[in-house]
């Protein structure tokens, strides 16, 4: 199966839902009657109604409008930080595993070190040294997310390296990077795709922790993670404040998960060998 027809065989429903969510987040805010910032202190915690389909929040802001605006940030953070961390994790882990020996030892002990460093201080130091930039969110998230990816990839690479087809590739005189790129990485796609989809919600939640520390998204802008976080307190008397962001995040993730699995299955050239 070629890559293109692998894509066309992806399940339709999650693709459709995902597209709707993405498009709504991108273009929704332009056609909404309210902006995400517009407050009405006389209409706080209003239950869903025709005027406010998902109700209003503590400041009387329209939840739907906020949800869509927040989606831009959360989707961007979730996807971009995951892409970045996957990229780093895969390259790093594959290199360490493929090289083996002391290179591997040194690289993986470095991973241990980064794991252990206190994240909160890492973020604060980052802000002190660089300042409060939006793109620091991605750096901060990617900085923690790549670690487990690197470990998984490294573990798989060490095993793959022993396979005869890698020896065959080496015997051809392929340079290491090419072996990594052409043979190792494609054979890693299964855990990689899965772990990447696992990282997305984490990235989204880390983002809300970062904004707690003052890095990144600041009110009145918001993100799904922050909306969920503050919605928890209100859940008993204004459940829509929790339910709306939680549901849209869950639905997005379900779609991404199903898609991820489908892509994984479609990319597995050997799948047809199964019984």
């Amino acid at each position, binding site marked *: 199966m070629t890559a293109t027809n692998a894509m066309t065989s992806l399940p339709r429903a999650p693709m459709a839902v995902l597209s709707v969510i993405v498009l709504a987040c991108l273009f929704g805010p332009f056609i909404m009657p309210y902006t995400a910032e517009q407050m009405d202190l006389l209409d706080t915690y209003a239950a869903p109604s025709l005027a406010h389909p998902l109700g209003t929040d503590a400041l009387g802001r329209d939840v739907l409008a906020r949800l869509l605006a927040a989606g831009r940030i959360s989707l961007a953070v979730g996807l971009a930080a995951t892409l970045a961390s996957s990229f780093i994790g895969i390259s790093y882990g594959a290199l360490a595993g493929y090289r083996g020996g002391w290179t591997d030892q040194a690289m993986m002990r470095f991973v241990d070190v980064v794991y252990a460093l206190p994240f909160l201080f890492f973020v604060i130091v980052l802000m002190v040294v660089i300042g409060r930039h939006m793109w620091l969110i991605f750096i901060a998230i990617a900085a923690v997310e790549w670690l487990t990816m690197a470990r998984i990839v490294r573990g798989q690479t060490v095993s793959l390296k022993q*396979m*005869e*087809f890698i*020896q*065959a590739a080496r015997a051809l*005189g392929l340079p290491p990077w090419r072996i990594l790129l052409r*043979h190792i990485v494609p054979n890693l*796609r299964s855990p990689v795709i899965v772990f990447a989809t696992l990282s997305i919600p984490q990235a989204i939640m880390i983002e809300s922790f970062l904004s707690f520390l003052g890095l990144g998204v600041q009110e009145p802008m918001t993100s799904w993670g922050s909306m969920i976080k503050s919605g928890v307190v209100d859940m008993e008397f204004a459940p829509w404040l929790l339910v709306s962001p939680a549901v849209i995040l869950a639905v997005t993730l379900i779609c991404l998960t199903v898609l991820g699995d489908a892509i994984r299955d479609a990319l597995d*050239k050997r799948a047809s060998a*199964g019984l």
Partner: protein
Amino acid sequence: MTAIVELTDLTIRYGDIIAVAGLSLSLQPGGCLGIVGESGSGKSQTGLALMGLLPKAANVSGAIRFGGLSVSGAQRRERIAMVYQDPQSSLTPHMRIAAQLAEGMAHPAADKIEAALRRAGLPDPTRVAKAYPHALSGGMRQRAMLAMALARQPDLIIADEPTTALDATVQMELLQEFVKIKQAGTAIMLISHDIGVVAGLADDVMVMKSGAVVEAGPAETVLTAPQHDYTRELIAASVIKAQSTCRHNPAKTPRIAVQGLSKTYRLGGDLFAQRRSITALHPIDVTLHDGETLAIVGESGSGKSTLAKLILGLEQPSVGRVTWDGADIAQLSAAQLRAARTKVQPIFQDPFASFDPQRSLGASIQDAIDMHHSHSSVTALLADVGLPPDFAAKYPHEASGGQNQRAAIARALACAPDILICDETLSALDKTTQTQVLALLAKLKREKNLSMLFISHDLDVVRAIADRVVILKDGRLVEEGSVDDIYERSSDPYTCKLLAAQTVPDVAAMRAKISAFETSAPAP
């Protein structure tokens, strides 16, 4: 008596590809059906269909009756055991041989496992039982696979090329074993490209080509009086003619020299296991001269593949050094070594495992072409080894054993190498294809002055292509000499025995040979 299996009109399709077309056969208890035919003709697919183990991509039609009943694959598998063509990938890599054997047995016990391994011709069953598949040689894995089938005491054994990785003497022993189990009432379906093997064992023979049966009947009839052109061709091809190579006058420049090379593997590797080791190769000196074909012959497990891997620099020697054109490969930088690899190309013993499962065969060959900026095309290379152009799109698991092997040859040739290291390169091919590939190699040798290190247990092939022969036994060099020296004048008892155990494509002669063959005592 009811047939133990009966296939009617079996057809296996993969999309547009018809792997097996309307095949029918039947096999009596205690009978032996030999299936011969060209590579890719659907032999293995037929076997897998009987086992009910065809991949889900397969579209199967036709009737399979077992013991007169139409039963499910799982029920058939209760009574059928199969020796798979590809022992390397077909053994579970993380389980010891003993464990893999035990789970197929009704009442496993250590001594029964060892007995089964011994019956399969393994000289050191205790070690093999404890070993993981990767620590075994190609031939040992094949016999372990066979032992696994024997240990199940099935009513039918489907043996798919069970002796391709074995030298003639061991092959002989196994044929004797097959005769025994056959006499005990077990039916055998023997798939082989070696007409001699089939001749020695089969009651009936079926000849296949492109998924269809071309001819079937009692062995004597089919093999002595073939009706069909293709059958005739096959039988004729089984006597391989010497290739006209410039055998006489190879230049004496050494291309590859091996000095005092040895390899010791550590065994065990468990947490507190006492360290044991096995010396796969004792210090050895070998030289491959320019334009020469040096054959390495020796019984299974004698260290041939180990030697090849050491020469290729894919394994680190325990002692000794390897030089390519005078340069010690251990001294070369990574980049220099990579550059030098252009000249030296291997063809691995196990072609399936040597292809990336996630890349098409064409892509793998293209990689080699790109690597060396050679001008060949995938299509041309495939054609050279007798594969159609559309093969480029196939993945390794979609090709037959022989097709993968040919793709491996094509990949090695894609680099236009000066030196080929061939490890049992022709073992999975039928004789016609073998002849074709041999001719190709001879041509390259003539035109491009190709040097070859040719590992094989097939003495006919060796004789046909080699200039010099080195004989290994238990990791030691026992004899070295020109082909003629070895074949005509050898005094080494092992060499003589090897020569004596050659198969012949003749029913009567072969059967006599089998019953007369003297079983060697297991090596100490």
